[in-house]
């Protein structure tokens, strides 16, 4: 049982290895990754880190209580996560698949509504906005709240649309 916030790419193999055991014949892994919705090129994740870890640990303890034979682990990535990269992963292993699926689903659903993590979407046009899990968005000040989240990250790799300069494409 392990709840972690990490600042580097998630290690899914390690997460799986942490919950698997010979007598747990079913393992369910959920991976959430950044979608390119509405021009998003990356998401800068921040958290109330102490509380997020404490809340994740409480969620895992609740899962343990509800599915005593299951082992669960969760990792959430913080900092800038580019489109297509994983931001969160939950693993649950149990003797039977139903518990593994249910415990895994429980943890990700609880995480989405309880764990103090926020996302600031970085868009192709250089703007940034706060987004919540109900799809509401609020423009963000130009200055990012975290020094390691450049507002123009990824622009070189994916130029913004709009008036092109002499190119037919």
């Amino acid at each position, binding site marked *: 049982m392990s709840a972690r916030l990490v600042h580097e790419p998630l290690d899914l193999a390690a997460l799986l290895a942490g919950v698997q055991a010979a007598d747990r014949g079913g393992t369910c892994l959920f991976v959430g990754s950044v979608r390119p919705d509405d021009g998003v090129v990356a998401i800068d994740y*921040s958290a*109330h880190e102490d509380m997020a870890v404490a809340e994740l640990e409480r969620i895992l303890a609740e899962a343990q209580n509800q599915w005593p034979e299951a082992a669960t682990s969760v990792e959430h990535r913080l900092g800038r996560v580019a489109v297509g990269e994983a931001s969160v992963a939950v693993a649950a292993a149990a003797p039977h698949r139903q518990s593994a699926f249910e415990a895994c689903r429980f943890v990700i659903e609880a995480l989405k*509504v*309880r764990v*103090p*993590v926020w996302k600031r979407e970085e868009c192709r046009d250089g703007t940034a906005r*706060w987004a919540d899990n*109900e799809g509401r968005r609020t423009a963000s000040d130009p200055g990012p709240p975290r020094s390691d989240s450049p507002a123009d990250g990824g622009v070189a790799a994916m130029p913004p649309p709009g008036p092109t300069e002499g190119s037919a494409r």
Partner: protein
Amino acid sequence: MDTDQSAAVRLRLFARYAELVGTGELELAMPLPATVEAVVAHLKAQHAGAALIPDRPLAAVNLRHVASDHLVRAGDELSLLPPVAGG
């Protein structure tokens, strides 16, 4: 109930709320205990930037979610949390 007229609550703000107020951490001197809602009203009275924070935001005391009628005591750390967006 005893109130401590000279107490201070440690307030932490995150994400958009920190951006609005311009800081992620401050101390508010006010009579305690007081409800979360009262602390938020006090913050709004003192910091114009806090106007856009809801009257009853998501809140945590000492790293646990609390309702807005929860009593904040001297020495508590109150965190005001924008709608969470993990995952």
